[in-house]
């Protein structure tokens, strides 16, 4: 039976789902609290292994979410306009010519935070809604 109650329930559910979609689009690029801030271009160069270091001279330790992860897809689409397949082709060239190795893979945004907190050279990306703040981790860039 349709009632005001069920109407309110349904509309609030819809609002929540719209809200979480908006949140899911907000990708945070995170680094160790000691890392310098970097712009999008700098992060492009680092994530494509065109350079090895952060601007402060520390060797970059990149971390990825697993292939097929929504946050990962959104991150790379936003940063370099490439999907998983294009990136795989790109990395294949580097791997099989000894020019680079792809980032370490962890399973969740929280694991990204944990890894970044422990490594001064670490850079990763997380879904804003999935993580707990950590004093050793800072936001380098927010990708919409």
């Amino acid at each position, binding site marked *: 039976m349709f009632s005001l109650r069920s109407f309110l329930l349904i509309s609030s559910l819809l609002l929540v789902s719209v809200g979480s979609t908006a949140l899911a689009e907000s990708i945070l690029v995170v680094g160790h609290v000691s890392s310098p801030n970097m712009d999008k*271009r700098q992060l*492009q*160069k680092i994530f494509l292994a*065109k*350079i*090895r*270091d952060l601007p402060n*001279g520390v*060797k970059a330790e990149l971390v990825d979410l697993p*292939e*097929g992860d929504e946050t990962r897809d959104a991150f790379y689409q936003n940063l*370099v*306009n*490439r999907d*998983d*397949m*294009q990136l*795989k*082709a*790109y990395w*294949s*060239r580097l*791997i*099989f*010519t*000894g020019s680079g*190795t792809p980032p370490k893979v962890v399973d969740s945004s929280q694991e990204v935070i944990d890894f970044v907190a422990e490594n001064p050279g670490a850079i990763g990306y997380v879904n804003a809604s999935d993580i707990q703040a950590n004093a050793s981790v800072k936001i380098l860039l927010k990708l919409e």
Partner: protein
Amino acid sequence: MSSSMHNIKKRNFTLSSALISTLLLTHIPHGLADDALIEQKIEHLEKEIVTLKSDVAKNNRKQKSIQTAFDEFKERLKINGFMSAGLAQSNRDRLYDGVGNDLTTLNLGKMGLQTNFRINSDTEAVVQMLGRARNNDWDLGAQWAYVSHLISSNFNIKVGRMRLRTFNRSADIDVSYAYPWVEPPNHAYYMLPFQNYDGIELEYLFESADWTYKMALYSGENHVTPGGSDLNNKDMIGYDFTASGEDLSLRLGVGRAHAEFAWDKYGIDIKPDAWFSSLGFNYDTGNWFITGEFTRRDVADPLVSDVNGGYLSAGKRFEHYLPYITVSRAKTTDNDERDGLLAEVFNVQETGYMLGVRRDLITGVAVKFQVEYLTNFGGSNGRFDTEFTSPHIDFDNATLWSLALDAVF
């Protein structure tokens, strides 16, 4: 049961328990001396338990450290591979790179396996084995076998066996999954017929404004025996420079070798200098690309031709489809140095117009189909084989199609 039966049972029980107790009492030692023995036994057992407990703890620690060592090892060792399989056919019975008008399967087939072992955070040992289908047989060889070391974060050195990197896609020419086409346009690449060298490579990375730059200097030698001949490339030296912007990259590559080419069967024994050069660009937005390269070979001997080669290719992505179009050409520039049969074999002129599509099936697997129309032979045999019975081709165009499946794992 009757009460008499019950009584008998009861009496028997009493009797047997009395018997048993007597037996027991006569057999169990009793007295102070015997208590001490029991004490001793218990003490001994307790000691054994302590030892066993510490053994178990030791084994647990050992197991943990083996597990840690194994996990660490797993972190250090990475195994990757790639493979291709394909079919090709042309509408001419004269062979073109092994393709004729019978369906050819093996020539595109290959499989590579690579191990990367990280010795420490700056040093790595890499071996890549490649098995290649050749003339209905398999050829297996080490493509890469080197140790690489980061002298500084910008400066890397590799020592061992490497792939030549003279042209844009020379180094990854076998990793077909990495590029859009079935293979890099052969008009630009056929002129560099060897793949590896044993030597040393220095690579330097730097950035300036929004661009990144890579310079490499390499030196070494190689020795191959194509078809029974003996080709020794000594004092090979090469240099390449790549500038990368966000979507655009530009590349220059140069290489020189002191070649020693001997073929007893034909009485050939020459020692010419050979130069290879390449200038190319790649523009890729992620949605569409355009790329081109000009390549050249210069050999100071009429027996090996000087060739200009090049291609221009563009494609656009639609979901997981990437249709592309390529125009490519090869032309020898020292034709006046040869005549007769040598001219038939080594003078080359040919243009190719190609249409193809790459379809990415799942991440790591792609299928490609392309059709190439060959023409503009300019009186030469193009890149078709020269048959000794009838050296010259009797057609002025040809169509070649290929289907390939490429994967990485």
